[in-house]
């Protein structure tokens, strides 16, 4: 019997054949059995990852306690020991990959690994003194590391064997043993012996984990089966060793090249990032014995989700997190936590891809790529690692390259077909034309620029806060939903607070609008309409103006276009994908601007009308009702949290006596926002939306041409009766009409910015009109040229006419002040709410204070500057005039400057 029956553990061994079929989508068997379902694969991954995560949390807890218990230097030493420990264990841990791939490897290699570990430990012990000097560590720590050396390879071999055999419970037990011993023994020893005590406990914990992994009933027979063909455990071990090197070399390098303070800060980063990387360690090991498309997909999703969760957790309030966990002295490094954890999250995904590649194909390319990335990582750390943040970004760059490279190799990606497709795509006439338009749009948006405006400065100030504080600030003082602020928050973290940086989301949205207009126009109408719409959007004044504003209006236009486009697709084709994209863009629209609700509401009316029109077709009606009836509640569910947020804002503003009022930037008498809007205000806002912002005189003249709207109404007779046109027109017009009605109660809400989502839709409709109404080629070209020319003329007037009442040249005024003001000079400004823009341009450079606090009395020989804006409003005008009179009595007015919407007086 014994001769005929295999040992129990071999019955669970994976099938030897490398599953070509499984690479095509099948599943490799877990042992000798048949395929494993994706559900079971996911369950196993989740169970082991949960154990790993718990173990990681335990280890983190130990580090946190140690950080509290130990002095900074000692903690840095302990962290360095941990890094050394990891440096021994993690490359040795790469043996896990080999034994997971081929469990019999554990039995064959155990003696050799023990001998190597013992020799390494001995060598480390012998060289402990010179190494301690080189690494600026205590020799005791190196001796402890030497004691840990024999365990490293053995733990790795046995854990890998457990993964390979499917003994997941035992593997989890071994994982949990380590933090348990560290916490039980290490805290006490660290308190007594300092870093050395902690290190000793860590070594003991390693031996305990080995004992659990090596318990009887799980060991592979030492002899018997030869390695199966096609497996490359050696190369797999090498690949995982390189991964371990990439993961850990930064902390060693940081410890070597940075001072104690920065090294400790990076140690904090490494600890947090290590937790993120640690959480995903087991996923590739679990994948190795079951490489296949489903297993890969599950592993990538799990690694990605764990990484994303880690990033989101630390992104909520990184400074506060670091301060609370490691102490206030490390708070400064909070800004680098998100990028570093992001780097570790990508490393987790890269490990999965490397594991898949090792199991599926020859390893030469993968090993070469890993070696190159490891070297590049070292170079980057040396090049830009001036501080902890620099090292973190070097690691982020390296792991990004690692993920991309491993994905290319693991997924057998070859650039040639993609390049060929890209070349074919890029040389298509329509792509070339649209790309040219997008490039022109980018150039226009970059060249025709202006300074930061008050609202933008407020947004930037909010975005500089930790995300939690920013959301709290928004909820307490603002009137807008948070999506754009979150985007801006991320932008500020990555690109800083420069003018271009903070406007980047808007810029990207308004350049992306060009190809989207083309694609939407082509899809809804035809290719010619798409071209015309894209060309119109390139020069449309509002798409340029709001590309240059760090506010939510560019995103509003973008999401409105996508939502409207997909609504048309739904009405025309139905389809789950269209419903999903529509719902996502509609929800994003509402999270971008509360008035997006009107837009989405108008779209629901169109849906209702379309449903009524389909009432004769019961089958389609039922399908429609199910899709709409599912999507609408989901959208409502997604928006419910925002409603709570909005209610909080309303209550906070009401309590502050402001309601939802806010300063208007109308800036002209044509459409004053202080009285109920009338027909002229409606005309002016409509003219703004299409032709851009102009001087009051120009707007008065434009508004006088209203009879031409009668002509337009007549020209529309009998046209635009398709569902597509109707849906676009409804979404464009109804929100404006609703706001006009609301404006009778609250005049300030009838403001073109609040229905700016209509702009791309109107441009689409104009594009359709100019390409379909004329029936011959020449009149069509003429109509397109006239329409584009009219918008371009409007754009030129908007951007370069100094009388544009929407231009507030804070930049010009404050830059000039910075040049003129000397230490001791004082700048007072009115109204007080322009403090954010004064802060943006003058922060740290000007002694600026609000005029509301009174007229200052500078020391003799120094000057007072009065900067006033919003002088079309009586209270601010009077406030400024009064201050100027007071100063005029005591000082001499030496200069007076006028900037668009701003005046500056200089007294000496």
């Amino acid at each position, binding site marked *: 019997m014994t001769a005929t029956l295999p040992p129990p553990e071999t019955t669970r061994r994976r099938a030897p054949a490398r599953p070509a079929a499984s690479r095509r989508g099948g599943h490799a068997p877990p042992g000798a059995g048949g395929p494993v379902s994706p559900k079971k694969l996911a369950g196993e991954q989740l169970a082991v990852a949960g154990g790993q995560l718990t173990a990681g949390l335990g280890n983190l807890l130990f580090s946190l306690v140690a950080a509290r218990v130990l002095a900074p230097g000692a903690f840095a030493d302990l962290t360095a020991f941990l890094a050394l420990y990891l440096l021994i264990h993690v490359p040795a841990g790469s043996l896990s990959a080999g034994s997971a791939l081929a469990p019999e490897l554990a039995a064959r290699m155990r003696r050799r690994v023990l001998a190597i570990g013992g020799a390494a430990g001995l060598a480390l012990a012998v060289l402990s003194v010179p190494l301690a000097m080189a690494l600026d560590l205590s020799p005791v720590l190196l001796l402890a590391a030497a004691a840990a050396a024999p365990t490293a390879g053995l733990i790795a071999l046995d854990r890998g064997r457990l993964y390979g055999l499917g003994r997941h419970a035992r593997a989890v037990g071994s994982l949990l043993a380590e933090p348990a011993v560290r916490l039980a023994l290490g805290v006490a020893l660290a308190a007594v012996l300092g870093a050395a005590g902690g290190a000793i406990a860590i070594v003991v914990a390693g031996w305990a984990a080995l004992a659990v992994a090596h318990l009887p009933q799980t060991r592979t027979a030492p002899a018997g089966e030869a390695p199966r063909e096609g497996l490359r455990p050696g190369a797999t071990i090498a690949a995982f060793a390189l991964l371990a090197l990439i993961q850990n070399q930064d902390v060693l390098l940081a410890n070597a090249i940075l001072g104690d303070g920065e090294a400790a800060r990076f140690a904090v980063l490494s600890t947090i990032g290590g937790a993120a990387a640690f959480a995903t360690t087991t996923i590739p090991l679990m994948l190795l014995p079951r490489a296949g498309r489903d297993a890969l997909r599950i592993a990538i999703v799990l690694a990605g989700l764990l990484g994303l969760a880690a990033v989101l957790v630390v992104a909520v309030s990184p400074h506060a997190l670091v301060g609370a966990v490691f102490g206030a002295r490390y708070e400064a490094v909070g800004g680098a936590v998100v990028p570093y954890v992001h780097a570790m999250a990508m490393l987790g995904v890269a490990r999965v891809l490397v594991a898949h590649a090792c199991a599926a194909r020859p390893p030469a390319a993968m090993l070469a790529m890993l070696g190159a990335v490891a070297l590049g990582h070292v170079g980057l750390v040396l090049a830009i690692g001036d501080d902890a943040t620099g090292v973190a970004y070097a690691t982020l760059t390296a792991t990004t390259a690692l993920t991309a490279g491993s994905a290319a190799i693991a997924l057998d990606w070859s650039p040639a077909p993609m390049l060929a497709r890209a070349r074919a795509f890029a040389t298509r006439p329509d792509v070339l034309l649209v790309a040219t338009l997008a490039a022109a749009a980018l150039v226009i948006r970059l060249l025709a620029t202006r300074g930061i405006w008050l609202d933008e400065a407020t947004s930037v100030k909010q975005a500089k806060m930790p995300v939690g504080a920013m959301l709290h600030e928004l909820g307490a003082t603002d009137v807008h939903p948070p999506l754009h602020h979150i985007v801006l928050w991320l932008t500020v973290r990555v690109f800083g607070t420069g003018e271009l940086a903070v406007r980047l989301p808007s810029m990207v949205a308004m350049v992306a609008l060009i190809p989207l207009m083309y694609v939407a126009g082509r899809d809804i109408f035809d290719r010619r309409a798409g071209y015309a719409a894209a060309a119109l959007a390139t020069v449309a004044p509002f798409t340029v103006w709001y590309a240059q504003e760090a506010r939510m209006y560019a995103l509003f236009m973008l999401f409105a276009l996508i939502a409207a486009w997909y609504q048309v697709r739904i009405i025309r084709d139905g389809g789950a994908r269209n419903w999903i994209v529509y719902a996502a863009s509609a929800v994003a629209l509402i999270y971008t601007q509360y008035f997006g609700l009107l837009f989405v509401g108008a779209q629901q009316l169109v849906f209702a009308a379309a449903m*009524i029109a389909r009432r004769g077709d019961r089958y389609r009606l039922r399908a429609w009702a199910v899709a709409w009836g599912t999507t609408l509640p989901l959208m409502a569910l997604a928006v419910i949290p925002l409603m709570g947020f909005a209610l909080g804002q309303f209550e906070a503003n009401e309590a502050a006596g402001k309601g939802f009022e806010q300063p208007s930037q109308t800036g002209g008498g044509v459409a004053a926002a202080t009285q109920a809007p*009338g*027909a*002229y205000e409606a*005309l002016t806002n409509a003219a703004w939306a299409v032709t851009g912002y102009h001087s009051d005189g120009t707007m*008065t*003249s434009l*508004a*006088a*041409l*209203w*009879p*031409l709207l*009668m*002509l337009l*109404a*007549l*020209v*529309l*007779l*009998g*046209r635009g*009766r398709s569902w597509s046109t109707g849906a676009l027109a409804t979404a464009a017009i109804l929100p404006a009409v609703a706001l006009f009605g609301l404006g009778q109660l609250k005049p300030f809400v009838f403001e073109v910015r609040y229905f700016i989502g209509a702009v791309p839709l109107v441009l689409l409709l104009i594009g359709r009109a100019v390409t379909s109404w004329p029936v011959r080629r020449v009149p069509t070209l003429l109509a397109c040229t006239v329409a584009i020319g009219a918008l371009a003329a409007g754009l030129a007037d908007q951007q370069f006419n100094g009388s544009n009442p929407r231009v507030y040249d804070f930049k010009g005024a404050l830059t000039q002040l910075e040049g003129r003001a000397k230490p001791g000079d004082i700048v007072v400004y009115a109204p007080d709410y322009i403090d954010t823009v004064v802060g943006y341009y003058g922060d740290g450079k000007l002694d600026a204070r609000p005029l509301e606090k009174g007229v200052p009395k500078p020391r003799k020989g120094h000057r007072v500057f009065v900067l006033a804006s919003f002088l079309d409003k009586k209270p601010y005008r009077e406030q400024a005039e009064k201050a100027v009179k007071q100063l005029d009595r005591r000082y001499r007015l030496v200069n007076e400057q006028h900037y668009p919407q701003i005046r500056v007086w200089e007294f000496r």
Partner: protein
Amino acid sequence: MTPTHVTDTRLRAPAWSAAHRSPGRRVAMRLMLCAMVPLAVVYFAWLLAPERVGHPALYALLIVAELFNAVQALGFWWTCSGERSRPPLRGAESAPGVDVMIPVYDEPVSIVEPTVAAAVAMTGARHTVHLCDDGDNPDMERMAARHGARYITRSEHAGAKAGNLNHALALTEQPYVLVLDCDHVPEPHFLEATLGHLADERVAFVQTPQYYANADTGDVAAAAWSQQALFFGPIARGKDGHDAMFCCGTNVVFRREALEQVGGFPQDSVTEDFELSVRLHEHGWRSRYVAEVLARGLGPEDMASYVSQQQRWARGCLSSLGPVLRSKLPLRVKLHYALSASYFLTGFTVLAYMAFPVVRILTGAQPLASTTADQFLAHFAPYFGLALLGVTFMGGGAYTFKAFALQTASFWIHVQAGIYTLLGRRGTFVVTPKEGAVERQPRAVWPALAAVAVLVGAAAFGLLRDRDPSTLNNVAFAALHVTVLLAGAWPALRLPSPAPAPERAPRALPPASREQEAAAAAARRRREREPLPA
């Protein structure tokens, strides 16, 4: 079969439906009417306030024009609110006798032949086709003989089309009479679809749509058809719903008894159909409108043809206005006739509207005072917008800007007809040409061009003198009128497009036409055996 037959647009299936049977439509229209009335009241209450009076004469002119258009608009809405899409109705009688009359004057045989062939091939009745030729054309006689139709001519050509028909009436005796213009090709089931409605002894005639199959052959034909589609769509359905549909001269089946009671077709009018309808309704007869295209005809293809047709209609209807108002018709029916006849006064209002900006720019006088454009827009725009929306909604998009522009550019026809009517000058019946000219026709639109010149001159003068918002506003009004006038007159100012490419037309007769051919041949053989009644 000649090439003309192969590319004849009348042989294509109709691309338009006269019926609209959406259940919620009538409710929607009545709701719109409920919205329209208060908007009109608000606008006129504001407009008629004493402080609005600017220049008294101009103000009076504006009020008259606005009231006239408001009455027309409300009349349109009222008409449409009663619309009924009456379906075809097969008669109980197995094979009623019908005389099919096709009056001809000087039209080409190629135009008339498909009509005769299709008329002969009609089913569902014992019918005889009479080709009533006032042109004494021997080719026409041969063609009639070829198709088995009876050829009727007369020695004295008095009374134009009405006289021609009356002459044929005297020579025939079937209880029903179908009148087809010579360019209207009937469907085979024309009689089956209409005779059922004559089972009601009170019904004098059943009208069907006058469909222009050549609407895609040019701008004039398209615009003319657009106007027709609005009439034979919601307006005709509405008139039918109010039992006030009038006869339109073709594609109509009469009860002989009713015709004889009123003395046949009136020969003293250029719109004999309209006058005949008034007389029939006065005698207590009723009318029906079947909302289905049962014949496919040709509309005017060039501006001169259109002008000729419109002049005849305008003069005929305006000359009928007095008799209509004096008639003993039921009030509702009388209102419908009055609305239809007075429509041809619209040109006077266009003239007034065009005059206002010119007078304002040149003299500074304007009709309104004590108001701002903001106030004017607040009161006028909703009324105007809903009126246009109503036309679009009720017309199902059939009424287009080109149709509106053509109608506006023809303002002078209404003015001319109004003056002639006032002067008591009688019009003459001019047959609408059935084939378009291939040349520019600026003379057909010279009054519109003169108006354009005046408007452009005034606008240029105003801009040179001043560019304040008030002047710009009036220049914009002038630009509005100029654009509309030029759009309307444009088809007369450019060379007509070449004829449709052969591939756009069917390369062979559709199956229905082949069936028509076969049926015509069978009918011809049958008639050769059976002598026609005397």
